[in-house]
């Protein structure tokens, strides 16, 4: 038995000793995903991290320009922007020619077939397939002529009939598709850039069946033959990838930063992408510092060790050539009242009092290292509809006024008000934010309690309207304020995205008119009006527009913060010389 222990210890030490050295020959990109990846079926994707992975192997008709800001939609699988009919309902797309799907056993003789208009129609139909209950269905629900009818018809059938033609999805030839909308949908093209609308091949879906989600067969720059439920995903360069070149334009100043150095080169620029899934923040942080990853979204709790005084990169990190990226996000955090609850619905003053009692500056300091912007209303800066000058009179810290309003609301010093439970996700920071909120409310006499939920439970409570107050952050799906304003649109009430069930007929009327307009100064001013009108009503307690921080090692080239970054990774590059040189420091 003793010898057994010796042998085991020996093996242990030996293998620890010969742990692998880094290679400097291959252009490998090392990334971290902070959440588990569900799978690679585009229509089932609902989170950003799964979208990022799918974006390495699949492509949509459009993508966002990697460097230009504000975000600009550029054709990806489409050859150009579509031709839109005068009534804005019919979009005609021309497709790129010669685009090949990945080689896969799904195709006859294993060679990837060419991408054609049938694939576009199939991929959209698939999103509406009632048998699949796609998570992305909301994007096209009641949008495309004939698609909802097709969906209803098929829900009674044994298997959905894809052969049936749909009025709104018309193949004109192999490289031209015409899509007819039911009503104007200005966000339509944005939707076509989203992971849910990545193009898949029918052959692959049929061949792999239920296992399709583990066998991504796309047209994208990287290939992944099989996805296994491991914590490491390794992509290799797609050898049959079409001719796609690095852009030569960007935002002003990008060339000075060296972001456009690779302009005109064929992409992708790296041979391999290795994604490690690391959930806990300590190993993520330690791993990055050991150069196990090239890029890191700074976990909030490691902020102080990375950033000195909220601005400068810590000297020890700087010495290693590490760079800091800080970018405002297109998001908003909020405490949403349930307007089904008469306590809140009729009582604007109560809502305002609670908003005034919350010390946002302190919260910002505690939770966001003072990097976030206090939200005056729903729309984040960077989107049309946001007006920098606008200040919500109830987004400030004023205990006196809060107390006054609370008394006017009928609850002097909080008397008569029951304890309010705020529902949130079971995450440490989420809990702490509410604890802080509760502490603030206690000052004016309102008792607040934390209710922790798993994500699905929280969704469940919100959709079933079983909450008083819940807190959440909303990130943009696409760069259009409609995505934010819709959160307060009455017809979107639960189970829709308006979890507060707030209804304001004036707002709704404006929303109806504005959202069918194409992007224009006129629309923006309507958005502004809505944004400010709803702000003083305080249907929510507005929180923050947050900032995202990234750290990258010196050898990572071409990285620029991107809100919709599914397709970003093909543009990244690794400088092997620098890596070799700097690696000595780790």
């Amino acid at each position: 038995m003793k010898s057994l222990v010796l042998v085991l210890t020996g093996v242990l030490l030996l293998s620890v000793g010969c742990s692998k050295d880094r290679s400097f020959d291959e252009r490998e990109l090392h990334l971290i995903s902070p959440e588990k990846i569900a799978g690679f079926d585009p229509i089932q994707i609902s989170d950003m991290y799964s979208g990022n992975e799918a974006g390495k192997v699949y492509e949509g008709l459009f993508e966002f320009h990697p460097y230009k800001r504000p975000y600009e939609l550029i054709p990806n699988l489409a050859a150009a922007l579509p031709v839109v009919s005068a009534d804005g309902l019919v979009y005609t797309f021309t497709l790129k020619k010669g685009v090949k799907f990945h080689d896969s056993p799904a195709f006859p003789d294993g060679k990837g077939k060419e991408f054609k208009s049938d694939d576009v129609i199939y991929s959209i139909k698939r999103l509406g397939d009632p048998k699949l209950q796609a998570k992305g269905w909301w994007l096209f629900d009641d949008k495309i002529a004939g698609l909802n009818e097709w969906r209803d018809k098929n829900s009674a059938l044994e298997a959905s009939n894809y052969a049936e033609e749909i009025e709104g999805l018309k193949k004109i030839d192999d490289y031209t598709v015409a899509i007819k909308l039911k009503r104007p949908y200005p966000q339509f093209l944005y939707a076509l850039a989203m992971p849910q609308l990545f193009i898949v091949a029918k052959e692959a879906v049929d061949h792999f069946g239920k296992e399709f989600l583990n066998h991504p067969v796309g047209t994208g720059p990287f290939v992944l033959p099989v996805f296994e439920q491991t914590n490491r995903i390794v992509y290799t360069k797609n050898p049959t990838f079409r001719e796609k070149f690095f852009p030569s334009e960007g935002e002003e100043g990008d060339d000075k930063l060296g972001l456009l150095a690779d302009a005109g080169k064929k992409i992708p620029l790296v041979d391999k992408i290795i994604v490690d899934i690391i959930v806990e923040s300590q190993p993520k942080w330690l791993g990055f510092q050991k150069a196990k990853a090239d890029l890191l979204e700074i976990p909030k709790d490691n902020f102080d060790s990375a950033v000195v005084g909220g601005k400068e990169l810590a000297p020890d990190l700087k010495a290693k050539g590490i760079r800091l990226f800080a970018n405002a996000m297109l998001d908003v955090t909020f405490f949403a009242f349930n307007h089904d609850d008469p306590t809140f619905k009729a009582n604007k003053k109560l809502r305002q009092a609670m908003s005034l009692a919350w010390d946002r500056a302190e919260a910002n300091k505690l939770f966001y290292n003072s990097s976030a912007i206090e939200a005056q209303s729903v729309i984040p800066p960077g989107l049309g509809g946001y007006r920098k000058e606008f200040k919500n009179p109830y987004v400030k810290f004023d205990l006196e006024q809060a107390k006054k309003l609370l008394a006017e609301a009928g609850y002097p010093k909080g008397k008569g008000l029951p304890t309010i439970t705020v529902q949130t996700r079971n995450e440490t920071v989420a809990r702490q934010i509410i604890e802080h909120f509760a502490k603030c409310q206690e000052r004016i006499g309102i008792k607040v309690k934390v209710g922790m939920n798993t994500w699905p439970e929280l969704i469940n409570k919100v959709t079933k309207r079983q909450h008083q107050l819940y807190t959440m952050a909303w990130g943009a799906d696409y760069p259009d304020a409609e995505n934010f304003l819709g959160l307060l649109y009455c017809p979107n009430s639960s189970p829709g995205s308006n979890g507060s069930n707030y209804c304001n007929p004036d707002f709704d009327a404006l929303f109806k008119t504005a959202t069918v307009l194409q992007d224009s100064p006129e629309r923006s001013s309507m958005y502004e009006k809505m944004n400010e009108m709803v702000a003083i009503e305080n249907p929510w307690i507005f929180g923050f527009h947050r900032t995202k921080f990234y750290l990258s090692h010196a050898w990572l080239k071409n990285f620029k913060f991107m809100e919709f970054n599914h397709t970003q990774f093909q543009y990244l590059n690794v400088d092997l010389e620098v890596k070799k040189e700097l690696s000595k420091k780790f």
Partner: protein
Amino acid sequence: MTKYIIRRLLYMIPVLLGVSLIIFLLFNVVSGDPTAVLLGKNATARQMADLREQLGLNKSMFLQYIDVVKSAFTFDFGYSWATKQEISQMIKQGSYPSICLSVPAFVISTIISLFISVFVAYYRGKGIDLFVRVVCIAGMSISALAYILFFQWFFAYKLGWFEISGFEEGFPAFVPYIALPAIIWIVLSIGPDVRFFRTVILDEIYQDYVRTARSKGLSEMTILLRHVLRNAMIPIITYVVIQIPSLILGALLLENFFSIPGLGGITLNALNSSDFPVMKAMAILSSVGYIVFGLISDILYTVADPRIKFK
């Protein structure tokens, strides 16, 4: 003997039915509507209703129970709600890393604990015995989390002896990854193990046959290793074998912190996404493991203890 095994195997049926019942009560009856989990934040009411129908949630309770029972006997657990993956496939893929971590850790910790217990039993009542006991108890009284946070930072990062996190398939590639979590596992389990083993060994040391062995002129160490340990093995085997099914689940926190893609991580993930089919599958899986290994430990009894004869 064969009859006994058959009888015990047959007894698995009512226990499995019971386990299915508990799981059914917990996940099908008491718990709420899963459709929100499946459809994400932008679900429509219509979609939710359709999905309920498709998932068979409108079926009668009895039929739903039958489904649970069926899965307990066929191991066909269906598909995950959160990831849409086939659960048996997830289990298959997840068990390898879990086993890579848990089996060596378990074997080594058991062996080390046995050695320490024999050692302290030899010096029972002396200072060293008290010292080891106090260290064991003190070690048990510290939160596992504290060990994980500190060890990862110190041994993997500061000293760089091990990989910080991750996993690779194949021996010995996985060793640098599992070594540190395995060490934490060992540190965590030595305390309770030694405490239990020591008690068992001391129970035996005061038996009459030990006096007989002494009167033969055997040395104290020989008595401990040959006579006492052999008898103490009987309760130790049960204690050890019954832990094996929990090894399959791995260590939830360890796997999470070290990014080991094992069943523990899957379970934790399922918990966080209210993925009931996966949680059901894990519960059934570990219950079956528990029952099977319970039987194995009973059979091993006969090997260790000639007095027990099963009819």
